């Protein structure tokens, strides 16, 4: 038997995707990919289609044209819940935790899946509480009573309960205090160390450049630039061009 060849197809591949909201043509042929274990940044001004790209990958909107592939298999028309079970975690821009459910119940929405033993569930919970001690404190509180930063922690922890192979992070540091921002930075590192790939959409350029291996820059619904993160500095004219006010 030949030894396992290193899988060469990307974990997630987006190929020439065109997505519409009603009649509005939002994504004009977006193509990008994320390899296993990679941290990839997606930069761009507000409204260029970054969130829509994440939603398309997550199956929350379906493209009119183009394909989305997960580990080589097409997932373009699959519903979101199947993708979550395949291993895609989603942390949306407005967090969207279940406000009337407790912290514990929020986490359980990701834990209660087929084939997960009670022991494993406990392990995952312990892990969440270790990384986010504040959640342990507030485990029986309703999600809606948490502060913005705590809700962000919960949203990420909740996605982690799915044991995903990739997490889609949509502007996780938006509206957070600097202390929380560095906490998010640490979480990204932790996830990376565990082998979870990350697609990071952010307005915070320094954070993104620091945390990512590669970055894509989007403008007007398409990818305009793509390079390793190390090739870009914060004051690069390209950054000014695509993200400057």
């Amino acid at each position: 038997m030949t030894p396992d060849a290193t899988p060469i197809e990307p974990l997630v591949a987006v190929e020439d995707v065109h997505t519409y909201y009603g009649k509005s043509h939002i994504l004009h042929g977006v193509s990008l990919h994320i390899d296993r274990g990679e941290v990839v940044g997606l930069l761009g001004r507000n409204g260029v289609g970054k969130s829509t790209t994440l939603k398309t990958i997550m199956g929350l909107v379906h493209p009119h044209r183009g394909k989305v592939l997960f580990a080589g298999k097409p997932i373009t028309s699959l519903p979101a819940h199947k993708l979550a079970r395949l291993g895609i975690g989603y942390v949306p821009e407005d967090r969207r935790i279940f406000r009337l459910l407790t912290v514990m119940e929020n986490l359980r929405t990701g834990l209660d899946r087929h084939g997960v033993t009670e022991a494993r569930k406990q392990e995952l919970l312990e892990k969440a509480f270790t990384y986010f001690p504040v959640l342990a404190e507030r485990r029986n509180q309703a999600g809606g009573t948490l502060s913005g930063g705590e809700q962000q922690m919960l949203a990420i922890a909740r996605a982690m309960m799915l044991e995903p192979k990739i997490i889609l992070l949509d502007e996780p540091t938006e509206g957070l205090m600097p202390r929380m921002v560095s906490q998010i930075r640490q979480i990204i590192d932790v996830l990376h160390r565990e082998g979870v790939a990350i697609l990071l959409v952010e307005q915070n350029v320094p954070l993104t450049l620091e945390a990512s291996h590669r970055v894509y820059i989007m403008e007007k619904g398409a990818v305009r630039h793509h390079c390793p993160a190390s090739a870009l500095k914060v004051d690069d004219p390209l950054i000014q061009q695509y993200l400057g006010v």
Partner: protein
Amino acid sequence: MSTVLGFVQAIPYQELLIQTLNGIVTGMILALIASGLTLIFGIMDVVNFAHGELFMFGAYMGVVVISATGSFWLALLLATLIVALIGAALQITTLRPLLGRDPLTTILATFGISLVMQNYALWQFGPVARKIPEPFSGQFTLFYLEYPWYRVLIAVLSAAIIGVFYLFLKYGTYGIWIRATTQDRVMAGAMGIPVSWVHTAVFAIGAGMAAASGVLFGPLVGVNHAMGLDWVLKAFIVVVVGGMGNLGGSIAASIFISLLESYASIWVSPAQAGIVSFVVLILTLLFRPTGLFVPTPK
């Protein structure tokens, strides 16, 4: 002084007591029906016009099972299960395709279903009312009046069913799924919850609850094809008065309205007592449109 005494003596205490009990019993049945209705609305924004017909079908299934086996309890169980399945089938065939469309379409579709079901029942069972015999008779004495045990059973069982369901929602795994889907359908899907199956399950549960009410209530009235209508209208009133999607509110509203109607029937005919619920509705809509038992929205 003597007028006050006269007034106090004129209060029909015995009647009031009986009507209080009646009100609670009817209120619990109504609560059971309305719970299903408000649940279905809360989770999928569907106004289920056919809910009264599910109630009616449940009663008829009860009739059929009892005449086949003679067991009231078996009838209750089977009717609930069968109608729950029918509900699931209806949801899958007619309501799923309408997901995401104008809410008007679900009102129309369920209205169409109610017409079909009513006439089907008329066709199969004829216009003559059937009877479900009470599982046991006998009355108990409270002070100096007699009250049938069976009615007490109805209230207790309805409360039990609602209670079990509430516990399931709060603590069960799938209860969390239902609550998450109710709050944020999209995010629930993103967490791996199969939203369309949750919808089907909820519709089936609502249908089952309606069917159980039908069997429980059967012995008190005749079972006929049109029995669903009155109940569905009252149930809608209850749901609006209690706050749409608010389970606790529906239960409170059910008992409140039923008590008022029972008291009213001491003085006026039952048909006219029905106006009470309409009046409550109008007052609620005028002054507290989000629901009487809902804390005032900020």
